């Protein structure tokens, strides 16, 4: 056990070092909203790097980016989904456990079921995305003079998203509500998960809400009711700021 306690001591010390440097760098508890309103101004490592999608084909990729930009738009409140790299996160998830439904029970028979039973469809999420994007673009082309979802005005895009959310827009190959459900779920996950998964780039969303991320050591903060925690987030890969 002595080896373990030595290791624990080391952990405590090494974690404790992180906040010190971060504070020295002058990070304020609440990042100024202006920084995220203008992605280019926030500069340096917050600018989305060029990313080549692994799963989505180009027209699908245009859809994913357009949808993410509406689900978490750019405004003065904080980083947009695109700035946070949520589209990259979604693409990566298609080849992960989630996209393949790798730990879901996927044997038939399949039956329609009340929503309380959860997703009961045959398709793994990556195929739901493929079918859902195709259906959505087909719907948009038909309804809006041959334009795909990505080519629509933002307000129109919001209407289409809301139509899928409620199921008012009906697709034949795939359930629009199910597709929207996966899309929204993954968008939020990508925004708020650790950056190792491709989204929440540099912990920008965590900075906005005030989650310290992987610091995971708050023994000193239990006894301070009513005092705002001051330190900016660290990620699994270390300090980002």
């Amino acid at each position: 056990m002595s080896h373990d306690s030595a290791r624990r001591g080391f952990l405590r010390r090494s974690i404790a070092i992180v906040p010190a440097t971060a504070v020295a760098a002058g990070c304020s508890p609440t990042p100024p909203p202006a920084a995220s309103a203008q992605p280019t101004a926030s500069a340096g490592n917050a600018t989305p790097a060029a990313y080549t999608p692994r799963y989505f084909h180009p027209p699908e990729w245009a859809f994913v980016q357009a949808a993410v930009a509406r689900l978490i738009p750019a405004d003065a409140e904080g980083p947009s989904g695109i700035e946070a790299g949520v589209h990259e996160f979604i693409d990566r998830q298609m080849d992960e456990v989630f996209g393949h439904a790798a730990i879901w029970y996927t044997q038939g028979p399949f039956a329609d079921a009340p929503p309380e039973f959860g997703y009961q469809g045959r398709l793994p999420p990556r195929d739901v995305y493929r079918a859902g994007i195709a259906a959505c673009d087909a719907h948009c082309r038909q309804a809006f003079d041959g334009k795909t979802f990505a080519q629509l005005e933002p307000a129109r895009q919001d209407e289409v998203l809301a139509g899928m959310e409620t199921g008012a827009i009906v697709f034949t190959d795939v359930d629009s509500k199910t597709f929207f459900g996966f899309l929204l779920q993954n968008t939020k996950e990508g925004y708020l998960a650790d950056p190792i998964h491709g989204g929440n780039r540099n912990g920008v969303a965590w900075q906005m809400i005030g989650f310290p991320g992987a610091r995971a050591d708050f023994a000193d903060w239990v006894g301070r009711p009513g005092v705002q925690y001051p330190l900016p987030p660290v990620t699994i890969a270390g300090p980002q700021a």
Partner: protein
Amino acid sequence: MASIKKPSVDAVLVGFGWTGAIMGMELTDAGLHVLALERGEMRDTVPDFAYPRITDELSYGIRGKLFQNLARETVTVRHNLGDTALPYRQLGSFLPGDGVGGAGVHWNGHHWRPLPDDLRLRSKYEERYGKKFIPAGMQLQDFGVTYEEMEPHFDRFEKIAGISGRAGNIRGQIQPGGNPFEGARSNDFPLPPLASINSALLFEKAARELGYHPFPQAAANASKAYTNPHGAQLGPCNFCGFCERYGCYNYAKASPQTTLLPTLLHRDNFELRTRSHVTRVNMSADGKHATGVTYIDAQGREVEQPADLVILCAYQFHNVRLMLLSGIGKPYDPATGQGVVGRNYAYQLNSGVSLFFDKDQPMNPFVGAGASGSVIDDFDGDNFDHGPLGFVGGASINCITTGGRPIQQMALPEGAPAWGGGWKKAIKDNYRYTASVGSQGSVMSYRENYLDLDPTYKDAYGQPLLRMTFDWRANDIAMTQFISSRCEQIAKAMAPKSYRVNARKPGDHYDLRVYQSTHNTGGAVMGTDPSTSAINRYLQAWDVPNVFVMGASAFPQNFGYNPTGMVTGLAYWSAKAIRERYLKSPGGALA
């Protein structure tokens, strides 16, 4: 036919979570050669739970890296006898464990002993309210063991796990600041309670002003460094906020890994085989005793493992399923009420209130521990008069902050948009200022809530899945409606800017999508009457005396608490009976 046959052992443990590890310790102590078969992988603090990798909400909290893989095996569910059951395809409502340590790795560590009345529930209700008070179809039963008999075993687990808490009743003396309703304990907790965080302080004050009796949640999250009776060491909890659904990187949460395995895995008379999935208990030709088990090894080969004693430690569902697959005990039939295996499946019904505070009241929700917070027990068990209320059961009501993991633990006020700029603003404005008051409600057993084998769906090895027939009944809804009104009363007194109540209403069905609790109970119920219980009061199968069945499958109905204090207490109680009585005349019935 199995292609491989292994040399016989004295005892084989099926599953290696909390109960498996306890039985391993107790039976190797008695000199037996014990083999544990665990379907999942080997897991230990390092490397599996090491910082910083474990602080990954997506992989562990959302994708469930440590939980059962449903692709191989799941349950099917239907609400009523006439419905066709559908598979529980994705994890939601409950999260069974997998791998060494079982769910004891990714549990929260809320520790409870049942109330003395909980163990004699039918007797208690009949005495206080009369036989007619219990609705038709509600199959209440006594456990067949008393609180006083169990007390030394609760005490033992508390010392092994290093429970942090404040006693409410030591040898009949009510203690200030503890739970005045709890049964008499022979000793205080081994560690003082965890420090209180802001939300718990507000709850405590509000509850006390309302005349209730708040006390700190007893926690298997160590408040100080601790060495247990086996010499295993725990470090103090640092409120990292990654507890339930995660392994503890800090050696602070009691798990088999932190409390038992450092000793057990080094014993010469103990062997652990991981990636060994038991498919059935093998029976003698006359069906009167078990000859061992059959399992599928890591290479997919079928292996026969002979053993003198077979101890099912596979968690509630899997214990029941293995009994049904192996022909141990008579399957329950809801049409006739006959048979015992699968009888009295129950669950829990929770409600809660999310509270949203002003900016001058930061809650720092990420400062949390699996079991840090304040609780009241005033509306649990039979601690209040049910007469005018007309329902059976109750709930513990708590204000516990386990962490502020932003994907899963993001509560938003009524009317907040689900996406778009409004959603972004809502998470920004509320994340740091939220707290919650929750209830954990008991669910009774009913004639038509039960478990059997599914006629259609199979697991990866071609065996039928377990089928659950379960829905909320009127009594459960009445209980949760009453309890949520109490939660709301306390929440209001905590003076938030706004709050939002979440409680099941009449007509609501059991929903598989949302996490409720992994406190599934029953199906192999203990008792003193073989016509209504599958195992006797020592957890020994009535029909097959060399099979013992651990876990919450033994509970005749569920209470308003987390189950592991009772589950582990029962394992110690059963182990003592095996050591002191069964081994003197192996194969004999203990009751």
